[in-house]
């Protein structure tokens, strides 16, 4: 028993010593601390983004780290809870002295922490940004397109490529997202001159039976419906339409439903489900664009999803920028390097990534159209190139 206690004490002292050299903002020769705040438990969970970032950093560490220093990556859980999200950010930024946040994916982290990041002069490359604050803060620049540009893209694809008229929107609004979705729809109107036939922004998250909303949309004469759903809700809506015998409706959805599981669960997709994938479609197994990512994920048993693509890219962008820093790597030098970086192109995305000094970061404007047709149970490429929001 005593030997165990002694061993424990020695370990603790050793850990304390090891940590001593790297307090503050990680100067010198200790590990470079990088963190992320994620939805790892709670109502909706996206563990893949930070897991993918960790896989990238582990691979980098195995090949010698950055300038001889190892990267120490800490992925904390926000439990879908504002208080926990705030505490997690303070632990990483304040206590651990992280140089940057990389690969975060959460439903509310940006909203809660963006002001704190500004105060602490630390930047965050989110793997997947969801809430509007992720795209409206000077200190956060997600690797993904985001649901708002994605909605503009899905509407553009529906009206311009599929030539659908009478497009309607059923929006599931959580928190303060309505103005951002409205802006995305207005953007589409500005580009095409077309308007929605009908919009219902009262559709609930996690509703059990969506029949009445579907009936209402059908009566309004909708031929296509754009929704911003989470997977279970979308399946509920499709089933409600199928039960009503409404089989000629086209669904213009977002990357939030792009998963193998969803495809397996959908047998009747009406006249088709179309999604502008925020990254090069991961279901295209032989694609050269995703080869490196796919191998790394498979090796580490991380699910192949859009979330793991986001986390992977965020970590890659970060590594590339940090490797170019001459001199000490600390929060200040990393922030400066990200603000002055050259754009990084990657075949997995349609828009080169740049953090830069902007007041907001919402510049990723390309999605790859994919479709899910009735009875196929699998996602297919709908086009052979990126769909972009036209520059006005």
């Amino acid at each position, binding site marked *: 028993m005593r030997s165990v206690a002694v061993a424990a004490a020695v370990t603790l002292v050793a850990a304390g010593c090891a940590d001593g050299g790297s307090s503050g903002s990680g100067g010198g020769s200790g590990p470079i601390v990088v963190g992320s705040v994620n939805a790892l438990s709670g109502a909706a969970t996206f563990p893949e983004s930070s897991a993918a970032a960790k896989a990238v950093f582990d691979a980098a560490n195995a090949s010698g780290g950055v300038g001889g220093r190892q990267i120490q990556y800490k992925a904390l859980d926000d439990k879908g809870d504002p208080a926990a999200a705030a505490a997690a950010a303070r632990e990483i930024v304040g206590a651990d002295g992280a140089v940057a946040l990389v690969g975060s994916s959460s439903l509310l982290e940006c909203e809660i922490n963006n002001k704190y990041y500004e105060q602490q002069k630390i930047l965050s490359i989110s793997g997947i940004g969801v809430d509007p604050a992720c795209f409206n803060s000077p200190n956060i620049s997600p690797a993904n397109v985001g649901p708002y540009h994605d909605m503009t893209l899905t509407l553009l694809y529906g009206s311009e490529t599929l030539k659908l008229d009478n497009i309607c929107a059923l929006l599931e609004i959580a928190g303060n997202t309505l103005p951002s979705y409205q802006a995305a729809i207005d953007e589409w109107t500005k580009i095409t001159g077309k308007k929605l036939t009908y919009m*219902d922004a009262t559709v609930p998250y996690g509703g059990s039976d969506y*029949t009445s909303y579907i009936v209402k949309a059908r009566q309004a004469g909708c031929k296509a419906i754009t929704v911003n759903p989470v997977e279970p809700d979308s399946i509920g809506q499709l089933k409600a339409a199928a039960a*009503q015998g409404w089989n000629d409706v086209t669904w213009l959805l977002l990357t939030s439903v792009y998963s193998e599981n969803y495809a397996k669960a959908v047998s009747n997709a009406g006249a088709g489900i179309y999604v502008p994938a925020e990254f090069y479609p991961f279901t295209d197994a032989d694609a050269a664009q995703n080869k490196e990512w796919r191998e790394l994920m498979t090796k580490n048993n991380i699910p192949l999803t859009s979330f793991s693509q986001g986390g992977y890219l965020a970590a890659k962008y970060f590594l590339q920028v940090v490797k170019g820093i001459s001199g000490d790597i600390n929060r200040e030098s990393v922030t400066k390097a990200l603000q002055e970086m050259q754009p990084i192109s990657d075949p997995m995305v349609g828009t080169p990534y740049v953090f830069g000094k902007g007041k907001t970061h919402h510049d990723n404007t390309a999605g790859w159209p994919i479709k899910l047709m009735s009875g196929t149970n699998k996602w297919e490429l709908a086009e052979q190139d990126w769909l972009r929001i036209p520059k006005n």
Partner: protein
Amino acid sequence: MLQGALAGLAAGGLYAVLAVCLTLMSRLVRVVNFAQSATGMFGCYVAVWLSVDVGLPTWAATVVGIVLGCGLSALLGWIISTWLAEADIGTRSAVTVAVLLLLISLSFILFGNKPQPFHPILDGPAFEVNGVVVSQVTVVTVVLSVVVALGCRALLSGTSFGLQLRALSERPTTAELMGIPAKPLAVGVWAATGLLSTLVISIVAPSQSNDATSLSMLVVPAAAAALLGGFRRLDLAVVGGLVLGMAQGALAQVDSLSVVRYFLPFLVVVGLLLWSQRKEVWDVAR
């Protein structure tokens, strides 16, 4: 409004069946079973797993799932009638809350929190009224709720078996002293309601949102419906379920009111409680 009400009937039928189960449980075994729909959800999830990962045909997997839901419910009944035989209704019901949370967590652990690829047993429209399609699921749930309520009523009032059940619920100790087998009967009631709720959830789950939480929480509107009959009357429980579903559907048609529809079960619960207590005098009601 009428079209919305018809659209809400499928949910109404589901609430009605669950409300009948809740009423039976409260009348016969002195429990408000909060895990009523959770046992059904768990049975369904196992059925999906059997059909997708094990490769059983859909009908066989569904049958196994229903049997499992029935067994889970019977097990819970056995536990409660063994260790909490003399406890009051509040204590016995509290145990089922723990089971509700346990089953939700367990399904997250076993099956993840992504939607399940349910294969529909019934799919598509049955007939059309006024431009609103009434789906096959709606027809089946509504008919099922009425048939079950009538069947139970006939059983309870017209057979000696029903008489024994009623005796057990009114005076459990006396009934046991007279030689009525209390525990097997109680477990039987648990098993029957478990079977019913798993059956109805198996029918409905493929045609609506079917994540563990929303399926398990169906017990809330069902409880509101059962309250209309004061957890005693089966006919009013059916009416309550159907009306609640139709009211939710109708409210969803009006933009300004559609927010209300999700509070509706709670509003109904509060309203009915206030109404049922309207004649109580202060110290008597305490």
